C-alpha cells in the first residue's frame, strides 16, 4: 500500500510543476489578453500539437528531420570527442601539442559559424550534421579528458606492475573510471546539439522544427511556433532522461553517492 502511495507521490512531484507552469502560462495569456498570433494559450497549442501529430500529422516530417539530423551530428561529434579526449588524456606530448588548438577553436561561438558551414557544405542535411557535431563536441571532449585523467593512481600503478600495455590500461582502467564523466558531458552535449540543429534550420529554411518555428512566427502563426517549441522541449527532456538512465545503469557504482 505504501509503495502505491510513494509512486503516486513521485508522479505528483514530477507532474505538478508542469501543471503549475501551464496554469501560469494560461493566466498570463488571459490576464494580459494577449492575441494568439503573438502568444497562444496552452489549450490552442495542445490542439495544434494534437492535430499535427494525430489527426493531420503535418508536424511529423519536421520533427523527424530535426531528430534524425541531431542524432546524426550528435553521434559524429560524440565519437570524435571521446576518441580525441582519450588520446590527448593518455599522451602528454599529444596533449601539449593539440590541447591549445582545441581551446582556440572552442573560443569561437559555434553557432556563429553556421552560415560559414552552410557556405562550405551547401543547402543539405550535411551542413546541419556538421554544425551539430561541432556544437556538441566540446562538453563531451572535456568530460572524457577529465574522466580519463581522474583514474585512481593506485589502479594505474597496479596495471603498470602487471606490465599492461597503454591500450589495455586505457580499456580496463581509464575508460571505466571515465564513464560517468563522459555521460555527464554527453548530457550537456545533447542540449547543445539541439541548439546547433535549430540554428542551422533557422538559417537554412529547408524543414525541421527550427524552420517551422521561424516560418510560423514570421507568418504570425505563433500557435504552430509554440507547438514546435514544446515538442523541441520534449525532445531535449527525453534525451536528457535517457542519458540520465544510461548513466545510472552504466556507472551504477557512482549511484550511491548522488542524492535525490
Amino acid at each position: 500500500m505504501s509503495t502505491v502511495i510513494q509512486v503516486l507521490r513521485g508522479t505528483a512531484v514530477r507532474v505538478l510543476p508542469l501543471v503549475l507552469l501551464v496554469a501560469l502560462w494560461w493566466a498570463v495569456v488571459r490576464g494580459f489578453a494577449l492575441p494568439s498570433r503573438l502568444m497562444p494559450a496552452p489549450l490552442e497549442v495542445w490542439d495544434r500539437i494534437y492535430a499535427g501529430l494525430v489527426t493531420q500529422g503535418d508536424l511529423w516530417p519536421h520533427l523527424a528531420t530535426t531528430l534524425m539530423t541531431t542524432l546524426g551530428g550528435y553521434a559524429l561529434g560524440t565519437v570524435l570527442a571521446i576518441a580525441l579526449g582519450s588520446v590527448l588524456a593518455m599522451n602528454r606530448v599529444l596533449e601539449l601539442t593539440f590541447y591549445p588548438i582545441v581551446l582556440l577553436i572552442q573560443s569561437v561561438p559555434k553557432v556563429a559559424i553556421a552560415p560559414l558551414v552552410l557556405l562550405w557544405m551547401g543547402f543539405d542535411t550535411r551542413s546541419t550534421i556538421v554544425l551539430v557535431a561541432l556544437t556538441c563536441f566540446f562538453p563531451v571532449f572535456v568530460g572524457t579528458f577529465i574522466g580519463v585523467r581522474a583514474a585512481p593512481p593506485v589502479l594505474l600503478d597496479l596495471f603498470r606492475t602487471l606490465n599492461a600495455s597503454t591500450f589495455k590500461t586505457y580499456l580496463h582502467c581509464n575508460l571505466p573510471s571515465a564513464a560517468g564523466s563522459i555521460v555527464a558531458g554527453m548530457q550537456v552535449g545533447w542540449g547543445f546539439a539541439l541548439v546547433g540543429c535549430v540554428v542551422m534550420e533557422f538559417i537554412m529554411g529547408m524543414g525541421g522544427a527550427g524552420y517551422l518555428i521561424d516560418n510560423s512566427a514570421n507568418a504570425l502563426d505563433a500557435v504552430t511556433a509554440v507547438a514546435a517549441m514544446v515538442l523541441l522541449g520534449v525532445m531535449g527532456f527525453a534525451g536528457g532522461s535517457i542519458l540520465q538512465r544510461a548513466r545510472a545503469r552504466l556507472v551504477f557504482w557512482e549511484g550511491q553517492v548522488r542524492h535525490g
Partner: protein
Amino acid sequence: MDNSSTDVPVWMRVVLPVLGIALLLGGWQAVAQWVVADVALLPSPVQVAATLTAWISGGGFTPHVLATLQGTLTGLAIGVSLGVLAGIVVGEVRALDRAVYPMALALQAMPMVAIAPLVIVWFGIGVASKVALVAIGTFFVMFINTVAGMHAAPPALLDMARAFGGNRWRIVLTVKIRSALDYVFSGLEVCAALSFILCVVGEFLAANAGLGFYVRAASFDINAAGMFAAVTVLAVLASLLAWLTRVAHHRLVFWKYRKH
C-alpha cells in the same frame, strides 16, 4: 594529477603548445593557398588578418561591433540582475521554492534559441529583440544557479547565525547570498558564452546591424574573408567577457580559489 613517469621536460611544455598553434595556422594557410585556392570559400590566415585590419581602420566595422555589444551586454545586465534577485527571493521563501524552481528546471529542457523568432515578432528587428532574447536566456540560467546556491548554504553556518540571534534577512544577506556567490559566478561564466550566442542568433534571423547580421550578409555575398573576420572579432569579445567573469569569480569567491 599526472604521474611523474608520463610527465615531460619543461622545454616541451613551452615548445609543444607553440608548435600546435603554428601547425594549425600553417596547415590552414597551406590548405587555403594550395588545396582550396579560393578566397571566396576559404581565406588564409593572412587574408583574414588583412581583412580585419582594413575593416578596423576603415571604421565600417564599428557599428556592427557596437550593436552586438549593446544587445549582449544590456540583455546580460537585465537577465542577470532579474535572475539573481528572483533566485534570492525564491530560494528564501519555501512555498515559492517548491512551486517555481521545478518549473524553471522543466523549462530548461527546451533549447533557448528556439524562442528567437517569436521574440523578434514581439520586439521587432531592432536591438530591443536581441536585448530581450539575451535577457530571457540568461535569466533562467542565473535564476536556477542562484536558487541552487541558496540551497547550498552550510547548515552549520545557518545554525550559528540563528544562535547569535540573526533575523531572517540578515541571515540571507550574510550567510546565504555569500554561499550562493560561487554558484552565481558559475552561472555568469555560462552566461558569458550564452549571451553572445543568443544575440548572434537573433541577428541572423532579423536585424539591421551587428556581427551576426554581418556574417549572414557576408554569406549571401559569398565573402568568407568577411565572415572569418567577424567570427574572429566575436570570438575575441566572447573570450574577453568569459575571462573577466572568471577573474572576478576567483577574486570575489577567494576562499574557494585561493590555491590557484
